[in-house]
């Protein structure tokens, strides 16, 4: 099968570390090397569109970069969870009537706002669909911002568990309407409202026919994610507090048998740490070139940035020491935002 050659890279990290930007840069790197790549994001705030300097991403992968030298190209795709889910319902429902019943359910219609994790689940589905199409040589995935980078991987199972929920299914069983169970029902009614519960339970029951399809899919996805074709890339900022997160993430991935291949240390501030004595000496020298207030500012500004240099260095050293097998790449702290393709390509070249 041709798609067996498709490479998958999952870019993880906590919010605000620059995942989206670096995922796009990674996809571009593959295009620079002559491959056909796609970057997928499910970020609802349209940040990938920002980073790529385009206003809106369409429903299908859109070409954002062509390498005329070697035929490489990068596509971008922004996932719309609701339409992906709708498509899946049609695909797995045993009959159009069942599909319609689910699509019309008011809870289903508000699923993404009401069930956390449904977006992540849809992202997984989309990744698999694109992977399965074999249309791209490399797929780079920008994962949603989560407190825990690992939550993304657990989302599909959580969704399946939720749909399997036996408690809710029991609610609809006629046997519950008699005897001691009636007390329980009354209590549920008082706490949650039976009409609503019934609505939820109906949705869950309608999903049962689709569940085997979903589960098979979840298993396939897991298999692809654990295979050699897939690797995980962690993005982190060089902050004292981030180190623990990196360690935990690496440990969990390892335990779950996923392949963490690299860490991208974003906003790395490179520089030399000078001694106080040296700085005092330099200040005198600077005062001979600049106005005294300017020299003062240059020195103060330099001192204010020293913590960034120190943090960057110690973060890198710590990672190299504790996770020696991990490929480490530093991306320099840029003074300006990455907001166009040219800047992304420049970053891509350093990866």
């Amino acid at each position, binding site marked *: 099968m041709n798609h067996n050659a498709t490479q998958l890279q999952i870019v993880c990290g*906590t*919010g*605000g*570390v620059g995942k989206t930007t670096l995922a796009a840069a990674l996809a571009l790197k593959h295009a620079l090397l002559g491959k056909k790549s796609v970057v997928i994001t*499910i970020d*609802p*705030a349209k*940040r990938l569109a*920002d980073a790529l300097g385009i206003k809106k991403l369409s429903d299908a992968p859109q070409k954002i970069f062509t390498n005329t030298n070697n035929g490489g190209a990068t596509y971008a795709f922004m996932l719309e969870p609701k339409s992906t889910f709708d498509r899946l319902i049609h695909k797995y429902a045993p009959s159009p009537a069942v599909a319609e019943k689910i699509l019309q359910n*008011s*809870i289903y219609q*508000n699923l993404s*706002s*009401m*069930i956390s994790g449904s*977006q992540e689940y849809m992202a997984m589905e989309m990744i698999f669909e694109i992977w399965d199409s074999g249309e791209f040589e490399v797929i780079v995935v920008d994962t949603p*911002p*989560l*407190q*825990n980078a690992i939550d993304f991987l657990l989302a599909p199972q959580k969704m399946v568990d*939720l749909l399997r*929920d036996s*408690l809710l299914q029991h609610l609809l069983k006629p046997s519950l309407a008699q005897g001691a169970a009636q007390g*329980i029902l009354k*209590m549920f*009614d*008082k*706490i*949650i*409202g*039976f*009409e*609503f519960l019934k609505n*939820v339970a109906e949705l869950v029951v309608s999903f049962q026919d689709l569940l085997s399809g979903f589960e098979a899919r979840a298993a396939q996805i897991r298999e692809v994610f654990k295979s050699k074709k897939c690797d995980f890339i962690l993005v982190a*900022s060089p*902050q*004292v*507090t981030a180190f623990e997160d990196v360690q935990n993430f690496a440990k969990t991935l390892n335990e779950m048998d996923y392949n963490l291949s690299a860490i991208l240390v974003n906003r790395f501030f490179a*520089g*030399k740490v*000078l001694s106080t004595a040296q700085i005092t000496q*330099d200040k005198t*020298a*600077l005062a001979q*070139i*600049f106005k005294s207030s*300017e020299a003062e*500012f*240059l020195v103060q*500004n*330099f001192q*204010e*940035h*020293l913590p*960034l240099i120190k*943090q960057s260095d110690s973060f890198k050293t710590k990672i190299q020491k504790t996770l020696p097998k991990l490929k480490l790449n530093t991306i320099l*702290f840029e*003074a300006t*935002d990455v*907001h166009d393709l040219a800047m992304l390509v420049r970053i891509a070249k350093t990866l």
Partner: protein
Amino acid sequence: MRTILNSRLIFVSGKGGVGKTTIASKLALLQAEAQHNTLIVELNSLGNVAKLFDLPSCPNTIQVINKTLHTINLTPAACFEEYVLRQIKFKFLFKTFFDNRLVKHFVSAIPGLNELLMLGKVIDLLKAYDHIIVDAQASGHGLSSLQVPYVVKRVVKFGPLHHQAQKIITALEDHNTTSVALVTLLEEMPVNETLESFATLTKTSSLHFAGVFINQALKNVPEILEAKKNLSQALKPYWQIYEFARMRFTGQQEQLQSLQKTFAASQLTSVAYLPNGAHNKTDLADLELF
């Protein structure tokens, strides 16, 4: 700034990584210093506030930072137990029907219930505190937990959940009590997201919007004319870092201008950049608002 501190309940929201916890904690410190009984609430988080104040992580327990400042990290399961007990009054009944595993499962299976329960609890806590600051969850869609009551009210037309949603909405939309503040950095992506969140907020609800906190704002980095030819190798680092800071400052000013197009000056509060970040109480006290 002054107006936001008047609110008894403040939700601090924004894109991931912009410093919501830092700003929420700073606001709470300011309230507490003024001798108001203040509580910082986290919604089912990893216990970041506790960490900031060097306390152990104890979900769903009120932790004392000092006499006037407390913190709690709410969990859905505990809020559920409280909510149920209020309806059925008998603890033994609760224990009989909902052992822990079952409760956990049940709460997670009812869409929107998590958020409703936690928001309901926050509103109850207003009885015990002068001021509550909520460090709202980071998510791709920053305001989502605040939108849950609206969604539930729309989807569930009657019954206890509908009432609960309505009760929460009434408290949230009481402008004398509740405000929402957004946190941003002066970078393109967070600024865009702030503008989007603000648009959603005003379009979908009548919550009172208190303003934007601009975290890591650089104070003036003056223009200095380069004296390149006289700069020795040893002095070059000073110039390089200056150029970096100056470029960042100009970039920040551009982003500030785009915020100023939407927000009045009184709605924008800057928080000075701390190169080391804010990792403890002393750092928080050092954070300068301007």
